[in-house]
């Protein structure tokens, strides 16, 4: 691409979506939702040996307002579920979620009355990591999966600029065009 570049060196043509996705995927700031033993592995992932900084996620934010990836690491009880949901709601869009370990994915070995059998009953999960607890490399892999997911996202730049009302208008317009097409047929 650079060889045919009409602007000489130092220029690169791309789409706004691609560059938005690139920026987002390489600076995913995690919100550590460490609830039990999985949190230790999550810290190991952030430590020097596994070094999540290589993927741009070294900044563990203790404030949900500044983070865009929630790692739910550990057993979620019914009482804690409300707290997890509240923190999730406080995170700004766009946001992603990793269910780390068997407990947060499915309740794990705690098939009993106080434990929620999977956090996907109340928040949308992007990647599930199996293991009890999963190794730090497995969580790194989950992070890379999310990066991959972000890189394939369409209209991310447009969605970031438009408000919800604008998006709704776009949706209506698209529906109208669809109807026209159907009528033409």
């Amino acid at each position, binding site marked *: 691409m650079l060889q045919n570049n009409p602007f000489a060196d130092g220029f690169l043509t791309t789409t706004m979506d691609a560059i938005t996705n690139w920026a987002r995927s390489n600076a995913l700031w995690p919100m550590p939702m460490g609830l039990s033993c999985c949190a230790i592995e999550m810290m190991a992932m952030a430590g020097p040996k596994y070094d999540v900084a290589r993927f741009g996620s070294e900044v563990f934010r203790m404030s949900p307002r500044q983070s865009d990836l929630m790692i739910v690491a550990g057993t979620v009880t*019914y*009482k804690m*579920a*409300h707290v997890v*949901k*509240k923190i999730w709601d406080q995170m700004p869009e766009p946001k992603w979620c990793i269910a780390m370990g068997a407990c947060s*994915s*499915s*309740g794990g070995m705690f*098939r*009993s*009355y*106080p434990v*929620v*059998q*999977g956090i*996907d*009953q*109340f*928040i*949308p*999960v992007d990647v*599930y990591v199996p293991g009890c607890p999963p190794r730090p490399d497995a969580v790194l892999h989950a992070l890379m999966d999310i990066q991959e997911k972000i890189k394939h996202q369409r209209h991310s730049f447009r969605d970031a600029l438009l408000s919800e009302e604008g998006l709704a208008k776009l949706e209506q317009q698209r529906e109208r065009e669809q109807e026209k097409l159907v009528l033409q047929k």
Partner: protein
Amino acid sequence: MTDIIQALQARFSHAIRETTEFRGETTLLVDAAAIVDICRVLKEEYGFNYCVDICGADRFTEEERFEVIYNLTNLEKRLRIRLKVRIGEENPVVPSVTSVWRAANWHERETYDMYGIRFEGHPDLRRMYMPEDFEYYPLRKDFPLIGVPGSIPLPEFDKKAPLKEAGQRYNRGEQI
């Protein structure tokens, strides 16, 4: 240890129903009405100054279904004693020993939370672990292990997950 038991038996002959010793552990089965007096004597005269634990048990029998177990320790002489109180199902009430050991407060709250045994004279008998509006007592034998469906509310799944209807799970596990 034996002299303490003998002294207690002489003093509370009507209240102590049974004394057992098993592998060096002494257990007294005591009437519920006398538990506070016995505990106070044990603490003030025999130095059982540490209330290690108070817990409950569901024996699931016709009579005297519930049991409250007190584990006490004399830290100075390194002695341990266990007291047991049995109560019926219809009216599970035991006098509180918070006036003897203040540490009994949370132990009794936990026992109340798990078995529904009420402690008379407890300053603040609320649930310890379960939500306050929970209606059941989870460690009773007739409580299902997986819980009662819908008894504890979950936060609502309001955001539509990609490609799925709101609230629908990705993995098709059983919802409780």
